[in-house]
């Protein structure tokens, strides 16, 4: 079979047009993503690169050939800074460990509420987020003192010894659990609400009790939500500043309060940058570990 030259030209033009159309369609996601990628590059990658480069410079405390890892070597060689890193991870880990089951339980209970009460509960849950952490933490400062309204009467009556909670990790963790709770509950509520009702009916029809529903339906199907919630809890707790600053104080430094100290008190942006990079590394490593842990159970 043969075709005329004009037919071939027409076919060629049609091929080109369809190729162009395919090209355009294939590239639409890329074109749509472009603004986000540019924004990410300008406002995340670029500042991050500047922070990393700054962290490799000598400063008023340390002299070394730039660029170099002298700041990291210094911080990792001092037991004080190692203690700060460990404390940051410990506070975030304990907050996650306690906050996650509480949030999970709250999410399940809220989901089971009547729709009107459910909306009220969700609104109530988000209320502390709207007030911001500072007002809440200042409230905790008044509440957790030995002479405060919570413990004061019990201590005066001799029911409990003076607790001296302010300035301790315990005070920081208590406030952080409360701080991360709304974020975790909302994440888990979404996960729980997506579980098809038929699965519960299937378990019940096979004679399963409530615990079976939880163990064989709610828990396994909520694992992706639990993974997201634990990452959120850990990240928020590790990067929080207000609670460690006000309730922990200078004796309970975390990486965030240390960064602010380097920047605001001693104007040492190089050591501040090194501490910021360490915080980022700590968070990345932990998030990878959390993800690996949950992946084992997610089918």
């Amino acid at each position, binding site marked *: 079979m043969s075709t005329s030259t004009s037919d071939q030209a027409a076919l060629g033009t049609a091929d080109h047009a369809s190729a162009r159309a395919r090209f355009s369609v294939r590239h639409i996601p890329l074109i749509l993503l472009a603004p986000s990628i540019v924004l990410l590059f300008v406002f995340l990658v670029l500042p991050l690169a500047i922070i990393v480069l700054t962290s490799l410079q000598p400063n*008023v*405390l340390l002299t070394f050939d730039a660029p170099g890892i002298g700041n990291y070597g210094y911080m990792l060689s*001092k037991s*004080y800074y190692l*203690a700060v890193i460990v404390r940051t991870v410990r506070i975030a880990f304990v907050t996650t460990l306690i906050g996650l089951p509480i949030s999970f339980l709250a999410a399940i209970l809220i989901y089971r509420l009547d729709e009107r009460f459910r909306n009220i509960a969700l609104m109530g849950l988000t209320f502390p987020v709207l007030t911001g952490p500072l007002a809440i933490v*200042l409230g905790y*400062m*008044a509440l957790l*003192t*030995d*002479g*405060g309204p919570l413990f*004061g009467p019990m201590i005066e009556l001799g029911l409990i010894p003076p607790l*001296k909670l*302010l*300035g301790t990790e315990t005070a920081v963790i208590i406030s952080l659990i409360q701080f991360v709770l709304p974020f975790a509950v909302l994440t888990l509520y979404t996960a729980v609400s997506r579980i098809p009702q038929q699965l519960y009916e299937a378990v019940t029809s096979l004679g399963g009790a409530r615990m079976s529903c939880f163990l064989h339906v709610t828990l396994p199907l909520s694992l992706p939500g639990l993974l997201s919630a634990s990452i959120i809890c850990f990240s928020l707790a590790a990067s929080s500043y207000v609670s460690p600053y*006000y309730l922990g*104080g*200078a*004796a*309970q*430094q975390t990486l965030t309060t240390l960064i602010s*100290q380097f*920047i*605001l*008190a*001693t*104007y*040492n*942006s190089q050591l501040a940058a090194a501490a910021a990079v360490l915080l980022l590394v700590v968070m990345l490593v932990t998030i990878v570990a959390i993800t690996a842990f949950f992946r084992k159970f997610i089918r």
Partner: protein
Amino acid sequence: MNFTRRDTLKTLGLISAAYGLTLPGQSRRAAAAGQPVLTVSTWGGVTEEGIRKFVQPEFEKLTGATLAFDIGGQGARYNKLLAQRANPPADVFFSTDEAVVSGLKAGILTPATRQNLGNLVDIEDWALTVKSGVGEGQVAGAPFTLISYVLGYNPSAVDPTPTSWANMWDPAYAGKLAFVAPTHSQMPAFVILAAELAGGSVDNVEPGFAKLAELRPAKLSVFWTDWAPLAKTNDVTLAAEFDYYLDAMKDQKYEIDYVLPKEGGIGVPEYVSIVEGTDNRELAEAFLNLMMDPRVQGAFAAATYQGPTNRKTEIPPELAARCACGPRIENLRFFDPEIFAANRPLWTERMNLEVVPQWGTR
């Protein structure tokens, strides 16, 4: 691509609008009206309120310019100047004398010309603590007020009344003391004071760190609100704090009083200085001069309990009793801000590494 006149006008309009949006509301309106604007980098709260109330009207009348404010903690504002030195975000900068020393060295602040500051001749000598970084006919900045660091205590929980900085080490106050955090502006003063109490000196601060490690603070503070809730519940009964904050606490019905320790309270002159690279130098100097005006300082003292630095300032006796002024100045000690600026990074590091961990274990 052709750019029409309309496109050009639109672009210019958008750029102007975008620039306008980056300015605070007041300066936006002033800039739009073609009125010169002097941007004041200062602390929020009493200082900002005082400037708005007692300085701004007079400044506007004198110069025809208006004021815009960049409010924040000293460290954050100082870092802004460092980061934006090519295009400084403010024209004048409020700070402690130590930050003036550091700022002049870092090239973000610049001295003022003495002859443009008519009120300077009436400023007390003790207020002019910044001596370095200035040439002939120049002054580092305008010391506009004096505050002092003293020993606050709860009169109904403390007996006898404390008399010395050494009282902070009394076992009776262990776990009941609010003390300066390593980041506090007066931390270097306490390194020196502790060294002296332990047999050292300003040139030998080594014993100071060991002595400070023996303290047992209940709370480390940067600002009085850090420990105020603990004072209400008697978890803090003794506190090293600025006099004017303690006076403000008294007005708020806190059970608090204060003494100037026998070794002397710490005198802290506060400065306003000119930002290097400002386009409004003339306005800046007019502002500095106004901050040293006796009427302005009198009004500031009445509103904030901050002592005047201008010897011509007249304040009523009942107010003088609550300010760092008059006979009280003889009981104040003025540290060299050069020493603070030169040693702060290393001393902060030593406080963190050697002292604070000891407090944590107690």
